[in-house]
């Protein structure tokens, strides 16, 4: 596929746990185009963070291919990976754990430049000041230590560090979930502004639907190691096709409850099964209200619904004339679900 900055094909990550095989990520295809945000959404154990670590080369990959601008990353040694690392950087969830408390902020942000052997001391310092200004931190904060900053400011430091090597892609693993609401908006605005100004792509790992709806050009929902649905269209959350996407949306508390017309959500039963012993067939079949025997026997592959959307559910009916019927009987159509949110985004080819 052309145009993709990052391209994952059939990626699997397996761990051996007490003689059993735990498939944390099980055959994931994912593309990230330049200057776009792809959100990966799911509950704990769905494999979203494991996938992020695999892309960063921080974890093992058991199968499949991860290509960055066409270069294969899987199987490279750390030494071979190093020259490729500037293109992909990461921002972690916990801004208290991801900054070395014994280094000054200036030194933390300078570290990637130092490791990559870029510039001289003076030019690196100038770059650090430029970066800190870019993320909205005061001049002079480079002499200070992380503990002198609040959570939101620390996340700005982490973002400045990620920007130091002018990456094309930043993997953000729950970057705002440790932050308070009032500070969360500041950091989200910063991420959006940096994307607009610098053309950075984000792989945005999150469990927070309201955040994802705000900034994602494309959304991928994972459940027990597999992608169950993906879409670039805004109808994704408004009119979900997959029962799990519907369940996730309805379980998310929103201010819509203040609406007098708001109807009580239908909740799915049970919890995510253990990844050590996943259900046969569809992984969601143990909790799905629309399950059939066929669902328990055969895993539903991702099917293209439109040029921008795919879904892995046997019970979504797609007629040849473009009419779509959800498992719960809602009618929609391919035409209603085409076209993408961002003008700059090319249509996602069906896989």
């Amino acid at each position, binding site marked *: 596929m052309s145009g993709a900055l990052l391209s994952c094909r059939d990626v699997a990550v397996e761990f051996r746990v007490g003689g059993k095989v735990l498939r944390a990520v099980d055959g994931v295809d994912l593309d990230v185009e330049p200057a776009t945000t792809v959100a990966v959404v799911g*509950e*704990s154990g769905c494999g979203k963070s494991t996938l992020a670590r695999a892309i960063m080369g921080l974890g093992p990959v058991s199968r499949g291919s991860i290509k960055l601008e066409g270069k294969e990353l899987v199987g490279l040694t750390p030494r071979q990976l190093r020259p490729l690392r500037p293109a992909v950087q990461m921002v972690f969830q916990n801004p208290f754990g991801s900054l070395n408390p014994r280094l000054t902020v200036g030194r933390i942000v300078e570290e990637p430049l130092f490791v990559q052997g870029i510039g001289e001391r003076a030019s690196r310092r100038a770059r650090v000041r430029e970066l800190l200004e870019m993320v909205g931190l005061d001049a002079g904060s480079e002499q200070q230590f992380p503990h002198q900053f*609040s*959570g*939101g*400011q620390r996340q700005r430091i982490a973002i400045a560090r990620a920007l130091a090597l002018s990456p094309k892609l930043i993997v953000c693993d729950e970057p705002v979930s440790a932050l*308070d*609401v*009032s*500070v*969360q*908006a*500041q950091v*989200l*605005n910063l991420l*959006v502004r940096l994307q*607009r100004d610098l053309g950075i792509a984000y792989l945005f790992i999150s*469990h927070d*639907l*309201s*955040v*994802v*709806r*705000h*900034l994602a050009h494309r959304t991928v929902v994972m459940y027990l190691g597999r992608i169950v649905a993906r879409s670039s269209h*805004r109808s994704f*959350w408004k009119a979900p096709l997959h029962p799990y996407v519907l*369940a*996730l949306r*309805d*379980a*998310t*508390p*929103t*201010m819509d*409850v*203040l609406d007098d017309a708001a109807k009580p*959500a239908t*909740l*799915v*039963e*049970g*919890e*995510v099964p253990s990844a050590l012993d996943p259900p046969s067939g569809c992984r969601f079949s143990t909790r799905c209200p629309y399950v059939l025997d066929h669902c328990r026997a055969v895993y539903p592959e991702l099917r293209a619904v439109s040029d921008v959307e795919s879904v892995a559910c046997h019970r979504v009916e797609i007629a040849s004339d473009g009419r779509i019927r959800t498992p719960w009987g809602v009618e929609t159509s391919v035409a209603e679900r085409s*076209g*993408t*949110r*961002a*003008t700059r985004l090319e249509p996602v080819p069906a896989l």
Partner: protein
Amino acid sequence: MNASASPALLEVDHLVVESVAGAAPVRLVDDVSFRLDVGGTLAIVGESGCGKSLTALSLLRILPEPGVKLSEGSIRLSGEDLAKASEARMCQVRNGAISMIFQDPIASLNPVQTVGQQIVEAIRSHRDVGRREARQQAIELLRSVHLPDPETRIDYYPHRLSGGMCQRVMIAMALASHPRILIADEPTTALDTTVQAQVMALLKKAQRDTGTAVVLITHNLAVAADAAEDVAVMYAGRIVESGPVRQVFRTPMHPYTRGLLAAIPTGEETGEGGEIPRLVEIPGTVPRPGSLGAGCAFAPRCPRRQARCTEERPELESHGEPGRAAACFYPYAGTLQ
């Protein structure tokens, strides 16, 4: 808050909690007053460090003493002042008239006792029943909180249960004494989205079935909007706005409440093919305790700040409709957006 004629189940007046670890005492909860009626639900919302959890802990007098202490105010449970009650009396109240569930359900359970032993202990500490009878009641309680297969799981140690199941066990234990008040401190924050919704639904059902009143501590405004009748918004140790939850969230008066609500991304305003819009920010950060000046704690971040705000502290006073109050000299009027 409400000056209604009926006596309140719980009436908290001018509560002050101080940190006495440093040289000078620092007020972490500053002059907090609220009331809770029989069967009612009050949500206390705010960001980290606003004092909402300390307020909850002081109701049960389980503050992390000696570093933090309840230094002023009264907590009247049906007229009895718990702030002055003896430790022996508080032991009866805890998990008796007032129960509490916590944010981290796995850490809140004893890891070396089975779930059943812990619930049986909770039952037998309040009722004179035999072991066998208490165990039967424990199974029924676990069934009522929808723990699957309670006859087997009652003999499990907590590590064998998921976070969601542990929170169900905590709720079962908390309900064992038929409490008049259940304090829930961020009960769903540590849980997965689909399980969060199940636990909130369970809490609401338990409240309907038993008539217990609930104090819900949360940072999530949508959770508060969904579950509570009344809300108190805290900032830097003080209640800055209070009232019926729908009114407060639809027509917020305090600039902080308004800012919090506006900062939540809705995803709705994004036009097709358009740029991602800027979210409304509250500039700056939450002040550290002890760094507050004479004026309103929110003044440095407030878009409506006037000279008076930095010199004088606004008290929580009634504004607008009955039951509503805000601590602001220049409150907003009208609906949000």
